[in-house]
């Protein structure tokens, strides 16, 4: 039995499916591909797959991963890639298979590219407002939790950022705290910005990479 990490992109139409739908999609592809992955042993056996860090609906992901257990230790990684890809919709594309180096729990940061645009505001104004906004000491938002609404400061969760004004959008590259315990969803950041700036913006969000607490690339 060997653990493997399968790397994929989630884009196009598949950007609009939830994590649960992605999970279903992957399980079906694993089942169809007949790759010797370990199955659960319950009443309804199904391939066992885990996702180190789920991606929100609407985001593109260029370096996403899923962990499975291979029953055949010598099974070729190339074969996994080619066999799985024919069983997947065009919005999900496998590009690499590796042996996992870090455990899923090590994920501490995620890097996002956020394209911001607005129909009635030019990019210079957005850039200015965004710089002001990100320079605030505190960015407080209301977060819904099991105990009701609570106010959290997401400024603490912004590790690094960079703003670039482009022709018809503003690109915000940002590294946010991520992981199972502390996670800042970039959607929260965007809506906090809308509140602050009183602008209505369209956002196109891509998750680029995951990192551990030492800012080493998650592998």
């Amino acid at each position, binding site marked *: 039995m060997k653990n493997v990490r399968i790397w994929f992109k989630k884009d196009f139409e598949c950007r*609009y*499916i*939830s994590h649960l739908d992605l999970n279903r999609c992957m399980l079906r592809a694993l089942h*169809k591909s007949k790759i010797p992955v370990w*199955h659960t042993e319950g009443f*309804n056996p199904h391939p066992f797959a885990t996702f180190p860090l789920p991606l929100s609906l609407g985001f593109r992901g260029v370096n996403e991963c899923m962990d499975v257990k291979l029953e055949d230790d010598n099974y070729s990684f190339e074969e996994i890639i080619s066999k799985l890809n024919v*069983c997947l919709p065009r919005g999900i594309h496998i590009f690499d298979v590796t042996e996992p180096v870090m455990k899923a729990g090590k994920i501490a940061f995620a890097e996002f590219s956020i394209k911001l645009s607005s129909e009635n505001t030019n990019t210079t104004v957005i850039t200015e407002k965004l710089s002001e906004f990100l320079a605030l000491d505190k960015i407080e938002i209301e977060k819904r939790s099991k105990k009701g609404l609570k106010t959290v400061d997401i400024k603490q969760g912004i590790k690094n950022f960079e703003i670039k004004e482009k022709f018809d959008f503003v690109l915000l590259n940002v590294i946010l705290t991520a992981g199972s315990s502390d996670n800042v969803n970039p959607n929260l950041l965007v809506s906090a910005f809308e509140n602050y700036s009183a602008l209505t913006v369209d956002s196109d969000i891509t998750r680029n990479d995951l990192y551990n607490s030492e800012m080493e690339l998650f592998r």
Partner: protein
Amino acid sequence: MVSKEVEKLLLKVQKPGRYVGGELNEVIKDKNSVDVRFAFCFPDTYEVGMSHLGMKILYSQFNKEDYIWCERVFAPWVDMEEEMIKNNIPLYALESGDPVSDFDFIGFTLQYELSFTNMLNMLKLSNVPIKSSDRKELKQIVVAGGPCACNPEPIADFVDIFFIGEGEEVDLEVINLFRECRKEGKSKAEFLELCSHIEGVYVPSLYDVSYNDDGTIKSFQPKGDAPAVIHKRLIKDMDNCFYPDNFVIPLVEIVHDRAVQEIFRGCIRGCRFCQAGFIYRPVREKSPETINAQCKALCENTGYDEVSLSSLSSSDYSQIVPLLEKLNEWSKDEKVSISLPSLRVDGFTDDIMNKIKTVRKSGLTFAPEAGSQRMRDVINKNVREEELLATCATAFEGGWTTVKLYFMIGLPTETIEDVEAIAKLGQAVVDTYYKCPNKPKGKSVRVTVSASSFVPKPFTPFQWEPQDTIPVLHEKQVHIKESITTKKIQFNYHDADTSYLEAVFARGDRKLCKVMELACERGFHFDGWNDCFSLEKWLELFDECGIDPAFYANRRRSFDEILPWDHIDYGVTKDYLIKECKKAYENTTTPHCRLKCNNCGAAKYREGVCFEKRKNLV
């Protein structure tokens, strides 16, 4: 394929995955290299429509032809509809993202009457004129099929062509004719005229209806040389009939997210309330070899790990046990589970139970349909209480602890005692559990009793019957509720308001078209969904149009009245239906097709069960 404009809306709506296409196995063609573009519309949400087998069959079959590109269209849910209207985005097909108005054919499958408004609303969202008389060119031909096409009259003004019966052959004949007509530069009128001579095609605009003073039909006349009677089409050889070996695999979860394998069409039983039991006659089976091969291919190609055997009554498949044995040979190794819905109370044998249990233990649902034996005889259910209780005992001994029972209220000749018997039967099932020596240890039993309201349907022996009024149905619902004394029984009932509207549409005539038109204008949609349905608003519409819905729902017709659907022939004769109706009044049952031929008329197709050798004759 979604346009930039649509993408902007997607993150503002619930479950955007249903509006984007891009699924595995969707068919993409070059629109410039096909002759005919067909928009296959399901007048409900993506999750419901994608679960429908008929659409999967026709989608694959149409796309197998190089000259046709068939694409899928579903009704956007209310949030998306609102955004589309606000942003001026017309309804589009999922594969190409092109507006529905670009298509040659706009086809609807009509599975339930309450989806009529969705059909009109989808045309409206496409900016296609809803009335056929307003679509003058040879394009945007609106066609419709499915069980509700058996009484097409309430929507006769909107649909150019109805397909009567099974679509696999007739649809392609019509599409092909269209292609030729266009090549020859024919007009829409010429095309429709030619179409009307294809068997199984009904072109409502080629007929005139006149009415008596009391609102009943005086005459129904073809204009020109359109056929006076439209005969349904049916597939004769199920083993050689087209069946897809692959499905479009949805990206988001749908209602029935599994492979579906059809095992036969029709039903031998002839329950008197059941439209499907009459319009799909005669029973035609696929051979176990065909089913096995198709099932295997489907599971391999789709990657589904569950396959459901589909028919009106699975346990009536003549070779069910050999079939399950064949399927079990490979299904376990492939980690595929087989599910067998639509089991009859008397069909759940030890043998079947053990074969489906090897894979997945789903809930058990039975439909005794009525509480008292007399009532079950009236509807020709041919199930005895002892059989139900014995079946439940088998299930309990096999480890099941929950059973769902489906009933109907408002059936013809029903008395309050018959209604009370529903509660009693539920109790008897609970008692059976506790009498069972091998029942699961330490577990309690849960019996769900569901009561829906009877809707009289065309082409059934009850097509002349009045529906109970809403207050009477409410009374009966309350009576059952009060007659249940144990908490082990959970009682659900179906909203009588929707059943009432269903009854109006099911047996409506062309006078309802103006109500439909107004409903569309006022933005009615999703009547099958509690979120949107309002009987009050419908009653206002009827009132405005000067139409009394009770005329359709609650009126007893006489046997000699001309019914709105009398010009359509589904094989079963009207005389047979009258005979069956009279037998119902006498509490007399009719044996099923395999026991005895009752001369319903379907033997004229010279196929299926009508020509099987009966065991008692051999």
